[in-house]
């Protein structure tokens, strides 16, 4: 996709998100003219620009769809369930088209034509039922509305009198709305035609002016027999004395009684609208713009890649600064040291600021989650309320976008497996509507995300039985509930008895844990049978900096992420696979052997006690050097999937160190044993 297309696509996607958010708002809170106005504005904007950038299909779609929202906006159509569903489908298909660059797959084509069919049907239904509906709706208004029928037939000498017969139309327009049907019956054949005589007449329907006096004013230059005014209301239109004659004349324009009535209703509408227009329109138009202006002063749109570049530069600065610090320590010049220290402070502040730029509120996920809850609940016949808290919590942009998959997966699970059907809930004395909560908050250097439901909870016994069945644990192995719950994250574990098209997509919670582990995060679950389940995700604020303990192991400099380390110990029990720690027997991961196959376990090296998902492990190292705040760099294309290193860092002296990935290490170790 070329640049301009891509830019349109980005902007349209943002607009769609707004659209979706408004839809969800409407669904939750009922009619809101502000939301409807914004929805219309979004479709209108997309329609206006899509074709221009080569998105012909989007242009076509929005062109027709716009009419519907226009009707809703004008209050002629209500935002009912059908329209709501239709709107979500519209969002989906436009997104799809944006992604494919306006290419329609046959599947999409079917979807699009289905949407357009519904749209056209809606529009048509309205047209057909239109006047009934309006007659009912506006019966008081429309029927009481005063219409004037004016037979306007100037005398033949009107031009000689120096009067322009057409001037009345201008004045009528000023006073209200009118329909004028030209009557050519008086025009003579050419032989009798006199160029300076006037042969035209009109049948005029007029509404708007408060009284007949005003009409008289309009026709003040005409003789009274030249214009005959009759007042009537819609209900009594047929009792107009010469109604038959009028209809006969109008038949020339293929206008019958019904059409005339409809036209008159439109007339009255136009008239009302004309009156309102002066005031409210600018207000309607202004409110969304106002907010945009306010936003514009607070934000600047910057390409994410530019920020990445900035972060890279700042990281290098910090690294070089570290080297400078070391050199200056060696030189031991007081002045130099002082200045280098100033520079260090500045560099660190610079880095913190730069990292801050990449933080975005987790709010960005909220719309997607809400949408999922809505669609899935409808599909499964469940009632679910979705509540978010702390969605202004900020995280690194890359984390937020990578979080989408895992979070949606968990929510899908909540609704599919945990929330009961309304009947079942009522039977259990629970409110009919289930609740899924999404809570985000800061704690320490981390962001925590909790996804809670008030569904049926996870039965630890069932989990254990399942795990035995799947061969994940042995029969009779005693597990605490917390350990049992941990099993649901194991590969190949799924408690859903049957594979539904919702959750059973071939990926389980193990992929959730892996995704989150790849972001150096952790996910845990707690549950109470009958009351609900709570997933807790712990994430670092940013991926590019990490607190580590610098160690050396068989000549390699290895950085171990600090957050996993609970203690450092001396290896007490010789050449064993286990060690005792605070009364517990924990497995040892022999890093020496992993790093160097020939290596025999050295005499009494140090052991780092680490904790991952409530399990403790000992990791052997030769020497603990010091704490090191590492700027994480990727390991390069050939080691993206290294079994236990996930990054590297440039040390103060310019050398390189490898960053140990505890999640991968433990997993690798387990698989090695199996």
């Amino acid at each position, binding site marked *: 996709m070329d640049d301009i297309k891509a830019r349109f696509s980005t902007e349209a996607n943002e607009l769609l998100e707004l659209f979706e958010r408004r839809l969800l708002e409407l669904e939750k809170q009922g009619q809101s003219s502000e939301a409807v106005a914004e929805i219309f504005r979004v479709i209108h904007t997309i329609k206006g620009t899509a074709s221009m950038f080569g998105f012909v299909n989007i242009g076509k779609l929005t062109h027709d769809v716009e009419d519907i929202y226009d009707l809703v906006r004008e209050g002629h159509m209500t935002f009912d369930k059908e329209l709501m569903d239709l709107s979500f489908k519209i969002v989906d298909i436009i997104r799809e088209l944006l992604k494919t660059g306006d290419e329609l797959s046959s599947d999409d084509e079917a979807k699009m034509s289905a949407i357009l069919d519904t749209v056209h049907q809606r529009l048509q239904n309205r047209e057909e039922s239109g006047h009934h509906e309006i007659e009912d709706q506006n019966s008081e208004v429309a029927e009481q509305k005063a219409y004037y029928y004016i037979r306007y037939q100037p005398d033949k000498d009107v031009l000689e009198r120096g009067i322009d017969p057409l001037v009345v139309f201008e004045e009528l327009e000023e006073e209200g709305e009118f329909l004028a049907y030209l009557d050519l019956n008086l025009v003579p054949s050419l032989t009798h035609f006199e160029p300076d005589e006037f042969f035209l007449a009109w049948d005029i329907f007029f509404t708007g002016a408060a009284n007949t006096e005003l009409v008289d004013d309009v026709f003040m230059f005409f003789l009274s027999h030249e214009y005959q005014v009759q007042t009537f209301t819609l209900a009594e239109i047929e009792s107009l004395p010469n109604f038959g004659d009028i209809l006969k004349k109008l038949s020339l324009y293929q206008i019958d009684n019904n059409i005339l009535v409809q036209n008159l209703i439109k007339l009255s509408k136009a008239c009302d609208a004309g009156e309102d227009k002066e005031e409210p329109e600018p207000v309607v138009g202004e409110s969304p713009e106002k907010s945009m202006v306010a936003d514009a002063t607070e934000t600047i749109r910057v390409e994410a890649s530019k920020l990445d570049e900035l972060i*890279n530069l700042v990281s290098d600065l910090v690294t070089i600064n570290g080297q400078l610090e070391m050199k200056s320590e060696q030189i031991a010049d007081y002045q130099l040291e002082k200045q280098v220290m100033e520079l260090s402070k500045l560099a660190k502040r610079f880095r913190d600021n730069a990292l801050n730029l990449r933080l975005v509120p987790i709010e960005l996920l909220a719309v997607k989650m809400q949408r999922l809850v809505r669609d899935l609940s409808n599909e499964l016949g469940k009632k679910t309320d979705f509540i978010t808290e702390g969605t202004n919590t900020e995280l690194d942009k890359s984390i937020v976008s990578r979080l989408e998959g895992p979070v949606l997966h968990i929510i899908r699970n909540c609704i599919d497996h945990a929330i009961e059907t309304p009947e079942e809930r009522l039977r259990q004395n629970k409110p009919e509507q289930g609740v899924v909560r999404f809570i985000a908050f800061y704690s320490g250097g981390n962001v925590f995300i909790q996804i809670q439901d008030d569904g049926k909870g996870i039965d630890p016994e069932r989990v254990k039985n399942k795990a035995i069945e799947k061969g994940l644990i042995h029969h009779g192995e005693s597990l605490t509930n917390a350990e049992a719950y941990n099993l649901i994250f194991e590969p190949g574990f799924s408690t859903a008895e049957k594979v539904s098209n919702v959750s059973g997509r071939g990926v389980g919670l193990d992929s959730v844990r892996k995704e989150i582990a790849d972001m150096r995060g952790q996910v845990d679950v707690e549950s109470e049978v009958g009351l609900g389940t709570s997933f807790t995700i712990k994430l670092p604020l940013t991926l590019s900096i990490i607190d580590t303990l610098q160690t050396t192991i068989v000549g390699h*400099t290895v950085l171990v992420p600090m957050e996993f380390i609970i203690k450092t110990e001396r290896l007490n029990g010789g050449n064993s696979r286990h060690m005792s720690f605070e009364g517990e027997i924990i497995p040892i991961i022999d890093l020496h052997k992993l790093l160097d196959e020939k290596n025999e376990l050295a005499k009494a090296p140090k052991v780092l006690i680490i904790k991952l998902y409530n399990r403790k492990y000992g990791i052997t190292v030769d020497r603990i050097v010091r704490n090191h705040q590492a700027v994480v*760099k990727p*390991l390069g294309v050939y*080691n993206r999937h290294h079994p236990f*290193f996930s990054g590297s860092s440039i040390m103060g002296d310019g050398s*390189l160190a490898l960053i140990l990935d505890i999640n991968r290490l433990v997993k690798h170790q387990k*698989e090695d044993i199996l």
Partner: protein
Amino acid sequence: MTQNDQIFSILSFQLGDEVFGVNVTNVLEVLHNKGVTPIPRSETFVRGIVQFRGEIVTVIDFSEKLNLHNNSPTSGKVIVVFYVQSNAHSFKVGVLADDVKAVDQIPAAKIQPVEEMNHYFNPEFLKGVYQRNSEFVIVLDIDKIFSEKEIQLIKQSTTNEKK
């Protein structure tokens, strides 16, 4: 200009007993090897990583990568840093060499196809061979050697290993 009139700038370097050539458009810089940080448990041809302009660059050994097993081992005195860019990916990678020899301007017509039987490595990776003085320079197809396909194969082999 027909294809055969095209002139290539070829950087040649010594690797063990062989002299290899690469198109200079792929070359970013030639570094003195001041030490490569090894990564245990990576592919055999991956010698480790070095820092290059603030980035981490993987250093590989062509004698392993291209299966030049009869070749005498490389001293790895220099590292030729390549920039590989395709639709699918772009990355920098370093290659060990004993020494850099020269940059030649070679017309395309002078680069002759390699007889398959004369070589013990994958002919797909070769563009051809040309003669300079008494030496034969084997021109490598860097884009092919570092193609997405090749990288993908590595991913698969490491994941298979795990299982």
